[in-house]
């Protein structure tokens, strides 16, 4: 048999989808960091996490990733997209880039994606659920309602999150997310 008739195949890369996922993770990562400083509920959840707790969320197997750590100060800090040299206690990975793209284009909510087995979680499950809740809150602030309803499990009603507070917090989160701190993170990760 001539085995050269069946060559080895090195599958290519989905550059656009990866870039898109990278941007989304960057924004969400920064958004989570900002939400921790703005939203009371996030603060409460974070308080329950152990100090130095580091988690990553990304796309298996080759990224992109976002890494967040709870600092000594009790605040969450977005550390960027590099995982090397960091002790990750909770590793949440979307199983492939295609699934990540579905989630990040809001065709599938995070909860639905969990249900469909799109995530693999390595670490403490209660912490994972806590992170999911934080992510949902961050997405509520970061995304317009019409999109956020697709992305989160349940969109809070007006009583739970009055529009005034929502828009005010959203403004603060955006300002914090895109503050010079962003350039610091980018610089450190390069």
């Amino acid at each position: 048999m001539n085995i050269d008739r069946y060559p080895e195949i090195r599958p290519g890369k989905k550059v656009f989808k990866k870039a898109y996922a990278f941007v989304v993770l960057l924004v969400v990562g920064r958004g989570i960091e900002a939400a921790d400083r703005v939203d009371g509920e996030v603060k409460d959840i974070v308080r329950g996490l152990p100090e130095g707790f580091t988690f990553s969320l990304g796309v298996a197997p080759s990224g992109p990733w976002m890494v967040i750590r709870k600092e000594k100060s009790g605040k969450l800090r977005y550390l960027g997209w590099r995982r090397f040299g960091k002790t990750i206690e909770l590793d949440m990975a979307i199983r492939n880039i295609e699934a990540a793209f579905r989630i990040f284009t809001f065709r599938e909510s995070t909860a639905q994606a969990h249900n469909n087995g799109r995530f693999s979680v390595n670490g403490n499950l209660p912490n994972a659920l806590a992170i999911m809740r934080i992510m949902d809150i961050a997405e509520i602030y970061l995304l317009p309602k019409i999109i956020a309803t697709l992305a989160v499990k349940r969109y809070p009603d007006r009583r739970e999150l009055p529009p005034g507070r929502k828009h005010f917090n959203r403004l603060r989160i955006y300002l914090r997310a895109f503050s010079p701190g962003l350039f610091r993170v980018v610089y450190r990760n390069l």
Partner: protein
Amino acid sequence: MQTLEYEFIAHPRILYGDCSLEEIPAELAENDACKPLVIASREAVRRKLGKTLIRAFYDSGCIIGGIYDEVRDYAGISLALNAAQLFRKRGCDAFIALGDRAAADIARAANILVSHKTDTLLPFFNGETPSRRLMPFIFVPTCCTGASAAGRTLFIDNRRLHSDYYFPDVVVTDRRMSLPCSARCAAESAILAMDNALWSIIDDNQSPMKNAFAHAALKLIGDNLSGFLKRPRDGKRALPIANAGVLASIAAANARPGIVRVLGEELEKETSIPAAVFIANLTPAALFCIQKNESPLPGDLLLAAAGMDAYAAVPTEQLGRRGAEAIIEMFESAANEIPEAAISRIPAHLLAEACNNAASREMVNFGADDAMAVLEMARQEMPWQTHDNGERK
């Protein structure tokens, strides 16, 4: 209270729905594999499904050891030996079968060869079973009859080998892959799935798990069959049928082979006409023979095909009969897509030979006379085809 004793095994992880193809690298990783060899049917590659599979591996970090696309409709040791050779030379660590039954069987056979570091299946033909777990094996059924090959049987070179190790580790039914190529293929796949489900329900080993699988399969078929036959390439209909095929084949793997399936396969061997043609022809006759022998049909399960309303409207004592009618109706609608009216045209001596061969197959619980009775019945008009008032349907 009657104690229930049963055994049931459903090894494969079933991945179903959007993006399930892209799950394959992750599944491989879970099985400690990263370099699969793809055994593909020519038809699948012609339909560019090989490329779709490669795209599913983008950004996965996996390398595909090669796509061995020599499989047609026959699974033979020659292909398995070549595939095993390719597997070894490329240093692969898993198999992916892309195609129908033959592709799955070549992957299974090559898997035995590489896992047992041998170049012959002779000991296995002589009754040996695998002594260790095989390499990870992922099955992506494409087109029609593929889904029915998700069980624990390796059918190679016209021999059937059974072992739990032959179950695929993962079965992927994906919208992009599991569409039938023609209305005929659609009908054949539905017939095979229905047959698997039907006979695992009729089987005397009444395992509730097996029944659950078969019932779910029948329900899926019942809900989608008519739409599927009208528009076979409509993914919304085709995918549930493919899924039903997988479920039914797992149920059938836990049951004895049904008389109709065995006869159909033996007739296929004699005549080269696909078994599904005979199965469609023979099922009404076989069900009638069962009723004639006053064996009760589990109508409650069979009526799953007709839906909850129909089930509720039928008095208990008529469940068996109505269940059978519902099933026959489904078989007939699928059979309409297959032009051959088979049985009547097969020479009598071939029918007799097929009956003898069928009765001598292992695990069957019928004799040549029973098989002949079904064939004889199939030549006559079925009483099922009349309503209670005697009117023809």
